């Protein structure tokens, strides 16, 4: 125990203190449910929102963007981190520096070029136009996470693989990936949630209301049903619930793997 609470009043006190800390964090989540419960009640609101054809379409769009981001991002980041962590070569510090610099590059600061590319290349309203920047912006974080994990793997593992005649790619496929399941889990969950939650890129790229993602649902409902706040909040619930479920399902290994990678 880091801090010790032996007597029962102090145990009660520390639980109360934690409740005091956590309640403000839970309150907005409770407010989401309370807000969605306005008007004709939450059940009726959910029914009304689900009937709007944009809702399943946007949910599908988000799923497409998230999966379309996770797969290439995972493959590219793993390859890159593997090369940085395991294979010796000279440009390492330069590439690592580039990763940290790219991590500091926010998506707001590149909307001028994105805006231009959209309007000239007719890329607007294609989900690909959201996926490609998302993959590119997500790689640095994944690489930093993966590199520290791969560097911690025991050397003997790789020597054994070489003795068995694996080349570097075979080592990656048959040795590194199977033992890196926790790492891959963290990257998949983190990238999925980041893609699911992205707001700015879809806002700039997906201009046609027929194409959208869940983060655009509240503003779509605001446009269509401006005075009906409970309906807007209910619509946001449709985007919140999947990411919360995903987090709760992955919580155990996700929390551990993420912190292990960031503390190196």
């Amino acid at each position, binding site marked *: *125990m*880091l*801090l010790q*609470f032996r007597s029962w009043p102090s145990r009660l006190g520390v*639980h109360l*203190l*934690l409740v005091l*800390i956590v309640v403000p*964090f839970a309150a*907005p*989540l409770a*407010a*989401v449910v309370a*807000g969605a419960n306005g008007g004709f009640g939450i059940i009726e609101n959910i029914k009304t929102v689900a009937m709007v054809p944009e809702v399943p379409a946007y949910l599908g769009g988000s799923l497409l963007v998230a999966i379309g981001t996770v797969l290439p991002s995972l493959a*590219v*980041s793993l*390859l890159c981190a*593997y*090369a940085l962590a395991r*294979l*010796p*070569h*000279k*440009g390492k510090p330069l590439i690592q520096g580039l990763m940290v610099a790219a991590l*500091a*590059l*926010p998506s*707001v*600061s*590149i*909307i*001028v*070029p*994105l*805006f*231009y590319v959209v*309007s000239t290349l007719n890329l607007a309203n294609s989900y690909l136009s959201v996926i490609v*920047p998302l993959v*590119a912006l997500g*790689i640095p974080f994944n*690489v930093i996470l993966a590199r520290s994990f791969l560097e911690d793997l025991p050397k003997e593992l790789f020597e054994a693989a*070489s*003795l068995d*005649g694996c*080349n*570097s*790619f075979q080592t990656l496929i048959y040795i590194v990936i199977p033992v890196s399941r926790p790492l891959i889990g963290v990257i998949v969950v983190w990238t999925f949630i980041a893609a699911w*939650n992205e*707001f700015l890129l879809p806002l700039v790229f997906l201009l046609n209301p027929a194409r959208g993602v869940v*983060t655009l649902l*509240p503003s779509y409902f605001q446009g269509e049903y401006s005075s009906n*706040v409970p309906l807007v*909040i209910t619509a*946001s619930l449709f985007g*919140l619930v999947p990411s*919360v479920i995903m987090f709760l399902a992955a*919580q155990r290994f996700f*929390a551990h793997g*993420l*912190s292990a990678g960031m503390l190196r």
Partner: protein
Amino acid sequence: MRGPEDPITTTMRRIDGSLHRRDVGRSRSTTATTRSKHHPWTLTAYLYLTPAMILILGVTGFCVAFVINTSFYRWNGIGPGAVWVGAHNFKQFITDPVVLLSTLHIGIILLTIPITLFIGLLSAALLHSGIRFSGIFKALLFMPVVISPALTAPTFREIFGPQGYLNDALGLVGLSSGRAWLSTPVTAIGALAVIVIWASVGFAYLLYYAQLASIDLSILEAARMDGASNPQVFWYFLMPLCRPATATLVLLSLISLAKFFDYPFLLTDGGPLHGTEFFGTYLYKQLTRYFDAGYSSVLSIAIVVLCIALSLIQRLANAKMRE
């Protein structure tokens, strides 16, 4: 030249080298002589790096070059007709009062970092102390990190509205104000600061929790034998021992707050009268409302420079602290 190697490494190198060299199409005889100079994996390593480099340099590199170039033009951001204006956009940046306001606002938001870190460390330390129901506490603390600002914004607008939940709660303790919290600059910035803390404590708690797990308990026991109380243990042991996590968290918070965009855009749109303007929202406004791509580019550069400057300051401060 390398020193003598053990047989396993040599065998490994030979096996790998030969497998790989066949791919590159070199003959065995030439590579056998160069083996000692060039590691056989070097080329493969670059091959593995290529997709990531193409994406990073292709997308982000292109965008950065584009932004720098655009900052010297007057241009609407879409069609042809860009006019070279030299440093005009930068001059506008220096004299623009909204830039000063945005800097002030981001400064206020940065002040939330110590609060966030303190709440994160305190809850991590408490959750390491044999607490019941810790699973629920952990999940609730981290939940805000995984949900999108775009999806919580409608609720926050309700919470801080004139007939919102905050005023309801204040009414319960006899402080009913009917105040529209997001409509005056001071309270709106305060609301944004509270939201930032709400959204980022989870991450701080997570890293601190992991860092605390690696602390050697015998040190703490020795301190307790000498009569250290819980607050003393927290202040003199846990806080200093968590310095690595603090350094990481400060860096990540600085980077993520310098680009603060979603919440002010969604909740106040920088208003009223630029009272909650941030570089991100101002940039977006300049581009999509006034079609001033040149000035937006200068603001983009400002955000990136701010990110880099803040992380350099953090590094220097961290190095100083270690001395």
